[in-house]
């Protein structure tokens, strides 16, 4: 009898402790400072504040200025023209479900899609008419705790949703490629809104695929090019080149000559680079946003701390 009392007492005590802790965290998480109303006016560097998840803005010309912080919380964020995209995991969903929020130039929600997976990459096409993303999906892959990726896109004008571009007809070495384990990630579109690039992974290899959206086919251009990002002039691709297991070197590929240039950032970068202009790329690393010249010269410069997912309005 004494044992039963002890067991019940101890159990109740521990459950009360757990509930108190959980409700305490709820209070911390719900707490928010004053929120600024951000717009997509030109000349800003927008980013995700890592500690709170809220989107902040500083002038691109003076990134050391005190940031304006919005009330919008995202795990990934990107902008182009009058469109922004915000990927946010829904709290309390297991397996995770991600909300893809398509936002207007005042960061108001125009459209929402809820898709399975956790956010990896997000981008908006240069013309602002397409948003695209990559999500990690658990359980798709064969390793017990493995992930696979699913890249999809959404046409802002027509409302057409492509949940995954896995059906894209791809040619590798001139032959139509079929594999059950084909995985795509890191989409990037050209200013014409039709030509695009992405990484295709299959059977342990990665390829840079050049796609034609209207005809919905593509061809592999080159091996070992991950997370491509097309320059504003459409001639070069910044990407992460795998140099070891879990180690990537930020590099730039000239699409005309296929010449690769490693950039001055020597640390491993696991991000889809962002072109601030035709000469500079930005990326997130160690909870900060950095910039480095796109021609391999110079050295990395820290633009903002407690920051990730950089986006530039122009």
């Amino acid at each position, binding site marked *: 009898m004494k044992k039963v009392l002890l067991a019940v007492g101890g159990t109740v005590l521990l459950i009360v402790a757990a509930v108190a802790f*959980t409700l305490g965290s709820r209070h911390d998480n719900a707490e928010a400072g004053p929120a600024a109303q951000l717009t997509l006016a030109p000349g800003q560097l927008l980013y995700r504040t890592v500690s709170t998840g809220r989107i902040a803005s500083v002038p691109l010309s003076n990134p050391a200025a005190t940031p304006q912080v919005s009330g919008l919380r995202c795990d990934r964020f990107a902008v182009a023209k009058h469109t922004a995209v915000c990927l946010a995991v829904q709290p309390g969903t297991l397996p995770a479900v991600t909300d893809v929020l398509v936002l207007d130039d005042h960061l108001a929600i125009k459209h929402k899609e809820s898709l399975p997976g956790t956010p990896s990459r997000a981008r908006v096409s240069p013309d602002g008419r397409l948003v695209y993303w990559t999500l990690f999906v658990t359980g798709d892959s064969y390793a017990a705790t493995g992930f696979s990726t699913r890249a999809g896109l959404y046409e802002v004008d027509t409302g057409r949703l492509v949940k995954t571009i896995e059906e894209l007809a791809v040619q590798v070495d001139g032959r139509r490629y079929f594999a059950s384990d084909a995985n795509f990630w890191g989409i990037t579109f050209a200013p014409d809104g039709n030509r695009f690039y992405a990484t295709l992974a299959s059977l342990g290899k990665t390829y840079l695929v050049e796609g034609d959206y209207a005809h919905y086919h593509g061809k592999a251009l080159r091996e070992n090019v991950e997370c491509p990002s097309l320059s504003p002039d459409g001639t070069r691709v910044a990407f992460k080149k795998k140099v070891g297991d879990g180690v990537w070197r930020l590099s730039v590929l000239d699409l005309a000559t296929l010449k690769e240039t490693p950039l001055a950032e020597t640390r491993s970068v696991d991000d889809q680079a962002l072109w601030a202009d035709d000469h500079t790329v930005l990326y997130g690393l160690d909870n900060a946003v950095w910039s480095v010249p796109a021609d391999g010269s110079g050295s990395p410069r820290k633009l903002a701390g407690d920051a990730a997912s950089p986006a530039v309005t122009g």
Partner: protein
Amino acid sequence: MYIAASRTSDLAAGNDRKPALRRVAANVVALGLVSLVTDVSSEMVTAVLPLYLVLGLGLNPLQFGLLDGLYAGATAVVRVLGGHLADRWRRLKAVAGLGYGLSAVCKLGLVAAGSSVAAIGVVLAADRTGKGIRTAPRDALISLSSEPGALGRSFGVHRALDTVGAFLGPLVAMAVLALSLGSYTSVFFTSFCIAAIAVLLLVLFVRDRPAVVDRDGVSLRAAFGLLRSKDFRRITIWAALLGLVTVGDSFIYLLLQRRWDVAATYFPLLPLGTAGVYLLLAVPLGRLADRIGRWPVFLGGHVALCLALVLICGPQAGFWLAVVALGLHGVFYAATDGVLMAAAGPLVPSGLRATGLAVVQTGQAAARMLSSVLFGLAWTLWDLRPAVFVAAAALAAVALAAAFVRPVRP
């Protein structure tokens, strides 16, 4: 339906009309409840850990996969050590409690580790060590607390309770995440509190079974001497060989998804299908094993897995075939997991029970890890279907050999 077959065991066990739970030793039920509560705690963390590491801390999924595989291998060694020390000190409950306690404290470690990936790695390794330490002494306690004729039923009851915990864990994690607005720390802290409840239950309600043996029987030499016993050697080797040709769970679910075109949102529900069937059949198959023999049921489980593989990759595809295949996968678990322990128990002297069970488990676990690597390789080289057919053929061949060439006679 089993009146004729169960007559002899009725005489031995007394009244057969009592529910199964009441006819197993109180100690087994207590251990089952401890496992249930512990599984709630550990499955909570398992469910959120990939999210936490990849999304919260920005770890690369590949790195996480590597990390995870490494620890699974390390557990194998600790398991034998835990089993042997429990036998040597003749304190099964204390060593099992140490394992449960270590894993509980590790949940707090996850809170303390914060965003340091290195610290999280250390904590996860310690957590797996705790799991490795406790498994063999716990199974030895179950086996020593039961009537030898009802071992299958005892393990069935324990595994069924354990599976209930695995069901509840992710649900509790979801509730905590929703309540705390996405705080992983709250999930870890709640997980700690639940693990502590399990330790409390263990301390209060589980009784130790000091084995009645002479002390010098429990040396390292005696432990190695176990393998000289013909039947024990056979069961260890056959379990390992069968492990080597067993296709891992994640592959099965992936195959089902490919064949059945399961939407990604529902994909994580597939393991629940297996667990549900396991939960329902653990006790009936354990009793069947007590009646017709544990080894035939164990091998029958592998035949069920083989059938599931053939169904999944066969010429016909369809919703019901997928459901049947998932059911067969559950049968495989119900007929093999606890039943192997029930089969191996009586082959080991009671003073060496934890050591002996640890050896069998470790051989099987190590072989299954190797099989995952091999199957992954075969899949990459030959594509999915040929790899599955080869695996099914190998499984059938080894199961047949285990039934007729040098069979185990428990």
